[in-house]
């Protein structure tokens, strides 16, 4: 369980990026943090594993204040999937997937077999992909390696920062649904940051909508649809439907040749 209490982040001389945020993410839950660019959702995510230090408030993981543990040790216990994929270009697929185990000091043979499991889990046949470099595979495949890397040390929690944004749409939908299955089978707790409400609705158990560093509303997709707290949440929840309608209308019209 992750508890954010009065979580605040301010940068010098600017208004708070995250302002007194309270949010609890249950064990085994898949929560999507959704909001427009600059709403503070990525900053909130980064404060969970102390990639950024909160200016105020606390983060509790399973009831323990994260300030009480070494940030490096904390980050090793939590999987992180990065927006721009963040694979190390000088390492092979296998080395990237196993790097967390390496920094934890595991033996080469055990890393080897674990990497094969991980690559199979994200649907990259190990014998085909182990020795390739990030530059030699597609964006979707790269982020599969990114997911494998995050899962290597069997974390209970996975944080994902716009993980599917840089991937072509077909590969993206497939990877997203593959990841949701992995989440279920490994009984993970996942926090997904995205600006794409469709993705959030399709994947998440609950959605937390953020605006200007504060939480606008938290609830299941159905709750947010049926009872939006304000116009902003309503507009956000409405975007997939509006796009679908616009799409249908456009397709129905004959196009000028």
């Amino acid at each position, binding site marked *: 369980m992750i508890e954010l209490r009065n979580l605040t982040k301010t940068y010098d001389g600017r208004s708070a990026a995250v302002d007194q945020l309270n949010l609890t993410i249950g064990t085994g839950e898949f929560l999507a943090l959704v909001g427009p660019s600059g709403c503070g959702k990525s900053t909130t995510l980064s404060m969970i*594993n102390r*990639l950024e230090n909160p200016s105020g408030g606390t983060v509790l993981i399973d009831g323990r204040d994260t300030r009480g543990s070494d940030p*490096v*040790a*904390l*980050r*090793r*216990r939590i999987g*992180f999937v*990065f927006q*721009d994929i*963040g*694979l*190390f*270009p*000088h390492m092979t697929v296998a080395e990237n997937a196993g*790097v*967390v185990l*390496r*920094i934890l000091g595991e033996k080469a043979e055990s890393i080897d077999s674990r990497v094969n499991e991980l690559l199979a889990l994200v649907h990259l046949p190990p014998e085909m992909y182990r020795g390739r470099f990030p530059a030699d595979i597609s964006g979707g495949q790269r982020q599969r390696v990114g997911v494998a*890397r*995050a899962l290597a040390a069997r974390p209970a929690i996975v944080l994902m920062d716009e993980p599917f944004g840089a991937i072509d749409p077909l590969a993206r939908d497939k990877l997203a649904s593959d990841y949701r299955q992995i989440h279920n089978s490994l009984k993970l707790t996942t926090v997904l940051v995205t600006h794409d409400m469709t993705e959030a609705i399709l994947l998440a158990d609950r959605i937390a909508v953020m605006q200007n560093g504060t939480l606008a509303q938290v609830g299941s997709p159905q709750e947010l649809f049926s009872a939006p707290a304000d116009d902003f949440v309503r507009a956000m929840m409405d975007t997939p439907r509006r796009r679908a309608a616009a799409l249908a209308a456009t397709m129905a019209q004959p196009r000028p040749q």
Partner: protein
Amino acid sequence: MSDWAGALAPALADLPEYLGWHVVLSITALFIGIAVSFPVAIASLRSSLLRGTALGFASVIQTIPSLALLALFYPLLLALSGLTRAAFGFGFGALGFLPALAALSLYSMLPILRNTIAGIESVDPAAKRAAVGIGMNRGQVLRLVELPLAAPIIIAGIRTAAAWVIGTATLSTPVGQTSLGNYIFAGLQTENWVFVLFGCVAAAALALTIDRLIALAEIGAAKRSRPRLIGAAAGLAIIVGASVFPLFGKVSARPIVIGTKSFEEQYILGALIERRLRDAGFETVRRDGLGSTVIFDALSSGEIDVYVDYSGTVWADDMGRRDVPGRRAVLDQMARWLRQTKGIDCLGTLGFENAYAFAMRRDRADALGVNSLTDLSRLAPQLKIGGDYEIFSRPEWRAVKRAYGLSFAVERQFQANFLYRAAVSGDVDVISAFSSDGRIRQYNLKLLSDPKAALPPYDAVLLISKAEASDAALLAALRPLLGAIELGTMQRANLMVDRATDKRSPEAVAQILNSRIVARRH
């Protein structure tokens, strides 16, 4: 064709020794440069103060002309050695390897420092963020992510440093370190352009080879290509091994170290001493092309054992005397001073003087009616004088100017070869010259007399270090040289090395001189 082959043969004979030292010196300096700069660069990533200081220091070093930097390390190490001797009872050799190594190591630092810092700073922030985000500590971020990604830039810095060091190492000859520079310095002095070219080409070829091997290692590491890595490592190992091997063969019981200054007469006399000592069964080592003060200090500190100096030089430079009491008195007082204050033994004079003198083209001197320095005093304001690099800052020049009231319209400095040509072509009217120089004959120059005896005598004297002064066999091998070389003989010998056609090597001329000395004694 045969001319080239003939000139190349002696060059090739020295190649294993010169190249060997050059490789050992450059590679060691490069390793020290890396070993020092690399940690400093890493540490300075966290401290802008350290970074500014380190880069500033390395840049300042780079602005010091490399020849001066090398030369400065000799007195520095000599003083340091004196301190350690006083404090701990042991000193170290301030001549040769150490000053060259220290200067070259410093010289290699800037590109390694700069490129390491720039390389690590240029690593994609996303990669760094990912590294921290998955739980790497600071050391792991550096080792697993930043250094591998910065490697191409860091290695480019090392390649630059390698090229600089290998090139600059040719300048370590004047501080007594054998290198490929020996070809260049000896060649410049004796106008042996084949030697100069050979030294340059050899140094360039070495620099290029090392550069290609580092590049190969870099590609091998980046592409995980074991054959490339092995090839590069093997190449470096072969070069270092092949260079060190002949040097080890040479190291035996303590050899007699023969010093020479950097002009042709000294090379001939050095070769002559070497030939006589070898014939007497001694192991010998040459330290060629040493600076004038370096060589004297090296003899008194026992780093070289024997060389030929000139009485007037010791008198003025080392004893600091400005009076000129006459030839015999100068020799006697000098010998006593050398023995008492420096422990140096003056074995005796070789029989000729290589004096500071002033010369003019004969036709020009005759036209102006100049025979002596006295005649110059009224003409000097209309005349141009050329000198070597030393003369205008030497006490002899001040003494001559004062004695004869000389004040020339222009004073210009030349490298010795070009000095004589400048006199012949009329670029200057008067030049400083050395009385035993073969070119005075060759170019038909007139030596001006010194009626007021403002210049001290410059008898060639054989000086022996304290350590060897009691070696009877050594003294016996060298004694036949005393009084055996007349001025005309030395001039002709010098000319054989200097002249443009039918050029002889100093070794060949030394052999001719030696056979005459041997013949005369039988």
